[in-house]
């Protein structure tokens, strides 16, 4: 009896093996032969009538429908090119990309942004897209974005979308504090915080109902905080650093955070936690992330980007609005970032891939991104479509456009930026938990970060 059972099991597994083999065969992709740029030249990418298949890797499930729509349009106009979208979760996107790079089977097109470009370019994984800048009207894209997508003079992507930071605020909490509207022209400065901090203090309440700055305020039992920036990563600080007239890096990429204006700005943000008490400590944010705290109405004003508009609209149990960042001593600055489609240096079909990249940055595709409210299109003429999509639903996205047209700064980066981030995170989390003075953190970051970069 048992023998029959074993025979049956073996028979079934044999069938399963055969099926696995059969079903796998059809989907197998032949990776490009050869290592260096040789494969890019020698394959038959120029022949018409030859169906070319391209792989396009992205990390956002929510944007996939708009891209599918745009690519369907592209494939109608270019019947010999087929593009398959592969969505990989953000948390593992870079692991998968780097594994594929090691295996020399990177996707033909993939999303990148300002941060990873120097590292990928240094490793010769990106196709030089400078020729595209002659084929396309570059005046239709924001200058800061264009410049930041270049490395050592070569362009590695056309601006495709962008985001900026602005303030989201909880209207209910503001009303409770006596504000019918968000105050206009808030300013901050490193000495006394300015009107910005005064405003935030009225929104920071301890468990006895006392506001920050009042007599008897208990900074150890705060139930509602006034403010949180986008993050404690370098980009979370750049709005303040550049707004004070400083910079994170010099033009060679060396860290210059210890210069007076930059250091002052970083101390200001640290003061928001420990001197003015309007911002939560790092350990509190680790326990409950900023988006959760904002939704739970424990943070009144949050500096973040347009990607939060839809989630807040869907999940916030309160009325909310948007406003421009406060003005710093050097003006109204906003940090911006933009995604782009980069092309694998060794793709067997560079011409076709460049056509796709060009199309996705062109008006036709950009209009789709704007009309569907997916993301802010980089193409200037399409930007309004995004704003219109949201105003129809009662949300005001124009504040981000205003910020884009003001003083903008791109994210800092360099080929070894990952290592700088490690040093940064370690020191900043200690400084923002009160375990290290901010001055020491700044000096450590500059010293160790520059060593890591090879200066």
């Amino acid at each position, binding site marked *: 009896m048992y023998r029959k059972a074993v025979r049956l099991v073996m028979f079934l597994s044999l069938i399963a*093996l055969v099926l696995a083999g059969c079903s796998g065969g059809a989907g197998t992709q*032949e990776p490009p032969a050869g290592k260096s740029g040789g494969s890019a030249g020698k394959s038959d990418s120029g022949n018409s009538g030859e169906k070319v298949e391209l792989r396009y890797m992205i990390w956002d499930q929510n944007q996939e429908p708009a891209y599918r729509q745009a690519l369907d349009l592209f494939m109608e106009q270019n019947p010999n090119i087929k593009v398959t979208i592969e969505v990989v*979760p*953000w948390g593992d996107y870079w692991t*998968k990309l780097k594994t594929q790079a090691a*295996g020399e*089977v990177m996707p033909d097109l993939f999303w990148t942004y300002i941060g990873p470009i120097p590292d990928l370019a240094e490793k010769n994984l990106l196709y030089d897209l400078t020729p595209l800048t002659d084929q396309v009207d570059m005046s239709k894209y924001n200058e800061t974005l264009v410049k930041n997508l270049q490395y050592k003079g070569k362009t590695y992507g056309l601006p495709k979308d962008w985001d900026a930071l602005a303030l989201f605020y909880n209207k209910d909490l503001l009303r409770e504090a006596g504000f019918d509207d968000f105050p206009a022209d808030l300013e901050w400065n490193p000495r006394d915080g300015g009107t910005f901090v005064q405003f935030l203090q009225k929104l920071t309440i301890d468990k006895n109902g006392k506001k920050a700055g009042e007599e008897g305020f208990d900074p150890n039992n705060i139930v509602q905080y006034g403010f949180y920036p986008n993050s404690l990563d370098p980009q979370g600080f750049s709005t303040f650093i550049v707004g004070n007239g400083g910079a994170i890096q010099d033009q060679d990429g060396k860290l210059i955070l210890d210069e007076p204006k930059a250091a002052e700005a970083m101390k200001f943000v640290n003061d928001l936690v420990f001197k003015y008490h309007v911002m939560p400590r790092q350990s509190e944010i680790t326990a409950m992330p900023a988006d959760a705290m904002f939704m739970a109405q424990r943070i009144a004003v949050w500096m973040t980007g347009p990607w939060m508009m839809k*989630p807040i609209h869907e999940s916030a149990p309160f009325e909310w609005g948007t406003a421009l960042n406060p003005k710093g001593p050097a003006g109204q600055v906003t940090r911006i970032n933009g995604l782009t489609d980069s092309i694998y240096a060794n793709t067997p079909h560079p011409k076709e891939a460049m056509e796709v990249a060009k199309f996705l940055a062109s008006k036709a595709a950009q209009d789709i991104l704007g009309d569907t409210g997916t993301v802010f299109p980089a193409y200037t003429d399409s930007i309004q479509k995004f704003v219109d999509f949201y105003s129809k639903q009662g949300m005001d996205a124009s504040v981000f456009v205003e910020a884009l047209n003001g003083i903008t700064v791109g994210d800092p980066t360099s080929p070894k930026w990952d290592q700088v981030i490690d040093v940064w995170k370690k020191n900043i989390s200690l400084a923002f938990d009160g375990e290290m003075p901010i001055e020491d953190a700044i000096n450590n970051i500059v010293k160790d970060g520059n060593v890591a970069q090879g200066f």
Partner: protein
Amino acid sequence: MKKILDYGVSYSVLVFFALISLFPFFWMVSTAFKDKKSVFIYPPEWIPDPIVFDNFRNVWEKVNFGVYLGNTAFITVILLVSQLLFCSMAAYGFSRISFPGRDIIFVIFLGSLMIPQIVTMIPLYLLVKTLGWLDTFKAVIVPSMFGNAFGVFFLRQFFLTIPKDFEDAARIDGAGVIRTFVTIILPMASSALVTLGVLTFVNAWNNFQWPLVVLNSPDKQVISVAIANLQGRFTSDWTGMMAGALITLAPILLIFVIAQKYFVQSIHMSGFK
């Protein structure tokens, strides 16, 4: 009186720790039935108000669950059958058949458990790519199919506890190695096999890193990757993820419930022998 105290204390400790372990599951079930606006209410709501069933329908459509469940089931069943088969054969070899160097080989084999998966990921990827198996189910199944060190170890330990008398009796009756294995050892090890089967099933079902890296086409992906896609760079679809996770959990719970009955039954039966 003392007995009541003993029982009281042990049960309360057990219940306490059980509640702590189950806490995340309560949250998951609760969030799966919540409206998006209720997710972040603080202090948290345990019974959703209103109770919403849309999340399940939305995530099913958004994520194309049917395809992913099918892929995952296919991979899991093959892995389950083949791993049990090969692990038990290897375990029998290591426990009952003597050959030169057997124990040394076993120790080295066991040592492989100390190698983290991430270390072998790139070499294995290159191997799979050279074989032309990228983006096929073969790449996911074959590397794990021939058993794993833990399974072999687990079964070998169990086989060692089976008294040699049974095999001697079988040999006297004229049975060879295979016959003994199939008719005597396997049935006696049924509870161990079921236990290993459940563990293998859960591992294969939840397999994430490897299929993510090796499979490209959207229609071949497995369900753990599909749910991970609901977690965006800045924001996540919490209610969708919890609903999706519940759907994914259902087969595992089912298997566990079935296996539990089998556990109890086989322990009960082996007592009679």
